[in-house]
C-alpha cells in the first residue's frame, strides 16, 4: 500500500504558477478556483486522494510555498 501524504500550501507564498501541478506524479493537484490568496492568485491544492508525500511538488516550487507531510506507518520509538 502506498504511503499516505498530504501538503500545506502557504497562501502568502503561492503564486499559482502550476509547476507543482504538472510535476505531481500522482496527478492529484490543481488550482483551487473557488478562492483567492491575498495577492490575488488561485492557490494550488490537492483535490483528491492519492498523495504519497513524495515532495516533488515542493522540489519544483519556486516560492517554497509547500510543506509536505507523510503518515508514519512504522512505530516510532518514544524517548525514554
Amino acid at each position, binding site marked *: 500500500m502506498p504511503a*499516505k*501524504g498530504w501538503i500545506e500550501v*502557504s497562501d*502568502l*507564498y503561492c*503564486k*499559482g*504558477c*502550476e*509547476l507543482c501541478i*504538472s*510535476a505531481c506524479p500522482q496527478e492529484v493537484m490543481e488550482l483551487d478556483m473557488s478562492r483567492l490568496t491575498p*495577492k490575488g*492568485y488561485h492557490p494550488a491544492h490537492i483535490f483528491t486522494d492519492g498523495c504519497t*508525500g513524495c*515532495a*516533488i511538488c*515542493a*522540489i*519544483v*516550487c*519556486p*516560492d*517554497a*510555498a*509547500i*510543506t*509536505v*507531510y*507523510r*503518515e*508514519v506507518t512504522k512505530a*516510532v520509538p518514544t524517548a525514554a
Partner: protein
Amino acid sequence: MVTTAPNNLVYERPEGFTDTPTHYCPGCTHGVAHRLVAEVLEEMGVLDKTIGVAPVGCAVFAYNYFETDFVEAPHGRAPAMATGIKRVMPERVVFTYQGDGDLASIGMGEIVHAAARGENITVIFINNANYGMTGGQMAPTTLPGMKTTSSPNGRDVETQGYPIRVSEMLSTLDGAGYVVRRSLHDPKNIRLAKKAIRIAFETQIRGLGFSLVELLSTCPVNWNMKPVDALKFVEEKMVPYFPLGDYKLSAGAAQIKI
C-alpha cells in the same frame, strides 16, 4: 488519527529563507535557485558566516530573501566585491548570485579575472537567455533566432553575434576549481543542481579555487510563455545549445563526496 507531528514532516521551507515572499513572476525558476542555495547553506551549517553578494538584475532584492549577511554590488561587479570581502575575511563563505545580463555582459571582465586569479568565491550564475528585469532585451546568452524586445525579428548572428557559453569559456582558466552547468527544468535536474551547488560551496571552503554553477533558468513572462511551457523551452531549445555537464573539475573538487 494522523497528526502533524514532527516525524510526519517530509519537507518544509528552508531556514535559510526569510519570511518575505519573493517578487519574482509566477513560475520563475529564480525562486528554485534561491531555495537550493538556502537549503545547501542550511545543510552545511554556515548560514551565520555566509556573505552573499547581490547583483543588479531580477535578483537585485536577493538580500531580502536569505537569512545571511548580504551586500549589493554595482552592475556586473559582484565578483570584484566578493574578492575584496573574501580576502579581508577569509573565514567567511562568500557567494555571488548573478544573472546573464549582469555576469556575461557588463560584468564579463570581472568574472573572467576573478576566475583567472582563482579567487575562493562561489558564483551562482542564472542563464535565462535575456535581460529579465528591464523587459526581456537580448542578452549575450540569447539563442540564435530567439525573439526578444530588442531583437524582434529574432537574434541575427550576422550582426548580433553568437551566444556566449560562459562555463566552457571559464573552464579554460587555471584558477577555476569547479565550473559546471546544470538546469532547473525538472525535478531530477533540480536535484543535480543542488548537489552541484553543494560541491561548489565545499570547493570554496576547502580553498580549491574559483567555483561557478551555471543554472539554465526560465523567464516565462519575457518569453511570452506559460511557466510549464517555459520549462519545455529550456529542455528542448536551451539544453542542446548549452549542454549540461562538468566543465572544470579540479583534482581536489573531484574528491569531494557528499
